[in-house]
């Protein structure tokens, strides 16, 4: 039992291909019908039924399906799609989980393009149909449509299938209508294949065991794609009774095998062999032919019977039982709602706790930041004090420099006045000296002249006096010149000393200037560098803290 061979593996859904090749003659037949049809969309052309029952060529399927579903002129639906697909859906998670489990047998739905397209289509439908939202099974129908047309058009056809073709009524009210369909199928089997029907009864196989998947997905899950497309062709042509026709065709074509199988064998046959059997084109065509040949009658009668049966069982039921069942049902939904309520309350509490935690954390952070801010402020004050102190110092230094400069300038002016005085004295002295020299020269020449003029004197002078006079005069002259010269030298010396003092004073002055400049530069530098930087950074930090604090307080208020 445990070891199943590979051939026992069921066929994955979506197995097969879309074959866009189409023979010329086939196309010719269709083009005539399509032209007629497009001229009057409301009226299906006569030849259409025969053509569709042979199977629509893949190349034309997208168009023909839309025409059959009368979805082509539904541009409103396509616009709706664009709006709905952009909306969020409460079913998103659920849909996502099912996407890679839909048509895993087809390449397009194994890669992200196809999966995303299918996801969007299912999501848009879930937004369109609030009552159903997303129901498992829909994704298969949607995927089959997407293999033949773009999303918007597939959406319009899907909406038509669900509403106009009444597929959606099987999904609602706890699948009530699905059970009616099972009953109708059972009755049809009794009518048309009584042996198989009694065999199933004998071994305990009930219709819902194999047909729920068939009906809810319109046979799109499990079967090879060409069969899926044949079935959709006829479904879109004839509507819901196609489900019975196909089901009966499948059962009658497998009747021989099913008759000899037990419970497990039958179920396995439905799961594995039956879908695989139609992988060949030939068998698929035969299935199509058989489906077309099956007549489905008395569906209305069976429906009435089903309602009557339901009513009977209701009547048979003790009113107390009915009420208790009703009560049970209500209690059940009550319980579910309570559970939901509990879950929500739990969620609320957890999120509250989380928020409280977050708030605490934020408050802690605000505290530490406040502390930091305070520290920054004190350090700012300290630094400002320091700055003030330094500035005072700088001012003092400036004052000192200024005073020193003044003093130096004063000295310079005094020195220069002294120098000029000396210069004046020197010039006066040299002028007097010159004058006196000239005067003495002149008097000497006068004396010499007078002597020369006097012969006696001349004689006298000639002998000794001249020498004497000459000598004494010369001595006098020499004496005077010497003292003048000494004086000049002294004055010159003093001048040199004064100059030296001036130079020294200038040097000192210059030095003081340097000091002053350096001090000023230092002050400037200290202003520009660390001090300013510290100040700016402190200011920034303070600003940030203030903003944070503000936002925190706002948050606290909003909470």
């Amino acid at each position: 039992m445990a070891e199943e061979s590979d051939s026992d593996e069921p066929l994955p859904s979506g197995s097969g291909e879309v074959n866009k090749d189409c023979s010329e003659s086939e196309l010719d037949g269709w083009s005539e019908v399509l032209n007629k049809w497009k001229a009057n969309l409301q009226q299906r052309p006569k030849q259409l039924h025969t053509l569709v029952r042979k199977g629509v060529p893949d190349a034309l399927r997208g168009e023909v399906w839309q025409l059959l579903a009368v979805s082509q002129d539904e541009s409103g639906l396509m616009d709706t799609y664009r709006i709905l697909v952009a909306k969020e859906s409460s079913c998103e998670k659920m849909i996502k989980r099912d996407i890679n489990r839909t048509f895993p047998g087809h390449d397009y739905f194994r890669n992200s393009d196809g999966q995303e397209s299918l996801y969007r289509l299912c999501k848009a439908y879930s937004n369109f149909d609030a009552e159903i939202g997303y129901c498992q099974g829909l994704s298969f129908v949607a995927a089959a449509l997407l293999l033949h047309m773009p999303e918007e058009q597939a959406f319009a056809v899907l909406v038509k299938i669900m509403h106009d073709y009444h597929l959606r009524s099987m999904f609602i009210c706890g699948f009530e209508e699905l059970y009616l369909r099972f009953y109708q199928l059972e009755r049809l089997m009794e009518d048309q294949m009584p042996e198989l029907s009694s065999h199933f009864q004998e071994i305990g196989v009930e219709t819902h065991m194999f047909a729920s998947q068939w009906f809810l997905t319109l046979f799109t899950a499990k079967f090879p794609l060409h069969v899926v497309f044949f079935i959709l062709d006829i479904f879109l042509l004839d509507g819901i009774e196609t489900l019975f026709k196909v089901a009966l065709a499948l059962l009658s074509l497998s009747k021989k095998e099913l008759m000899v199988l037990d419970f497990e064998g039958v179920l396995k046959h439905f799961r594995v062999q039956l879908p695989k059997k139609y992988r060949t084109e030939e068998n698929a065509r035969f299935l199509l032919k058989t489906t077309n040949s099956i007549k489905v009658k008395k569906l209305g009668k069976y429906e009435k019977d089903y309602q009557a049966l339901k009513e009977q069982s209701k009547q048979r039921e003790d009113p107390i039982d009915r009420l208790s069942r009703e009560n049970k049902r209500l209690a059940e939904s009550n319980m579910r709602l309570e559970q939901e309520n509990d879950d929500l309350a739990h969620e609320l509490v957890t999120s509250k706790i989380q928020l409280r935690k977050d708030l605490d954390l934020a408050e802690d952070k605000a505290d530490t930041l406040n502390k930091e801010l305070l520290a920054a402020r004190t350090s700012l004050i300290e630094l400002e004090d320091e700055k003030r102190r330094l500035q005072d110092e700088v001012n003092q230094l400036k004052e000192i420099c200024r005073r020193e400069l003044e003093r130096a300038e004063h000295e310079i002016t005094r020195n220069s006045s002294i120098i000029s005085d000396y210069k004046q004295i020197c010039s006066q002295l040299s002028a007097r000296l010159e004058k006196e020299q000239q005067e003495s020269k002149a008097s000497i020449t006068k004396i010499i002249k007078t002597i020369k003029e006097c012969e006696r004197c001349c004689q006298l002078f000639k002998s000794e006096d001249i020498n004497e006079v000459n000598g004494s005069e010369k001595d006098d002259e020499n004496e005077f010149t010497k003292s003048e010269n000494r004086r000049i030298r002294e004055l010159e010396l003093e001048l040199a000393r004064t100059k030296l003092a001036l130079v020294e004073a200038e040097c000192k002055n210059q030095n003081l200037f340097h000091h002053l400049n350096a001090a000023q530069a230092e002050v400037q530098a200290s202003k520009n560098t660390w001090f300013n930087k510290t100040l700016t950074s402190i200011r920034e930090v303070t600003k940030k803290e203030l903003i944070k604090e503000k936002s925190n307080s706002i948050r606290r208020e909003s909470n």
Partner: protein
Amino acid sequence: MSYAYLFKYIIIGDTGVGKSCLLLQFTDKRFQPVHDLTIGVEFGARMITIDGKQIKLQIWDTAGQEAFRSITRSYYRGAAGALLVYDITRRDTFNHLTTWLEDARQHSNSNMVIMLIGNKSDLESRREVKKEEGEAFAREHGLIFMETSAKTAANVEEAFINTAKEIYEKIQEGVFDINNEANGIKIGPQHSPTNTSLPLSGSGSSQGGGCC
């Protein structure tokens, strides 16, 4: 193939927890990462041996979506064992256990053995539900509990077999009415229904499922 007993099981739990993969691992001993979505119900069967007896397990694998519960419900009645599965990597599937359990208790026979399964135990790094939480839930509601991995096959065999042992034990104790097929138990074609005094060898814990 003859068997001493036939037990019917039902596998329930939220969508995507790995119900179909558990069934496939048990019946076919393989794991299929990409597989078809279950619509309605699927069916699987396998023979096991307990206490030297051939026991046939027929297992209904159900669709997990909430909407399908009305379909699933019709399968509870004929089941002797239920595997209630959640995904250890998704907390919400664990949170929904209570509603699943309510549903199961309401629509099944009171003796149905329920095995709670925390599946996907191979995904330890993504675990959201602790093993202890599963154990506590099982204890509280009188269920058997196991963590399994349909991917690595860890505990899968045991989960199905321990459930069968529990059912077998209950039969021995005379709790199950084995003549009523609605209980999900059938006696094999050649088996005498009165032969119930067999000793039970090394069966697992007996916390008595479905007692409340």
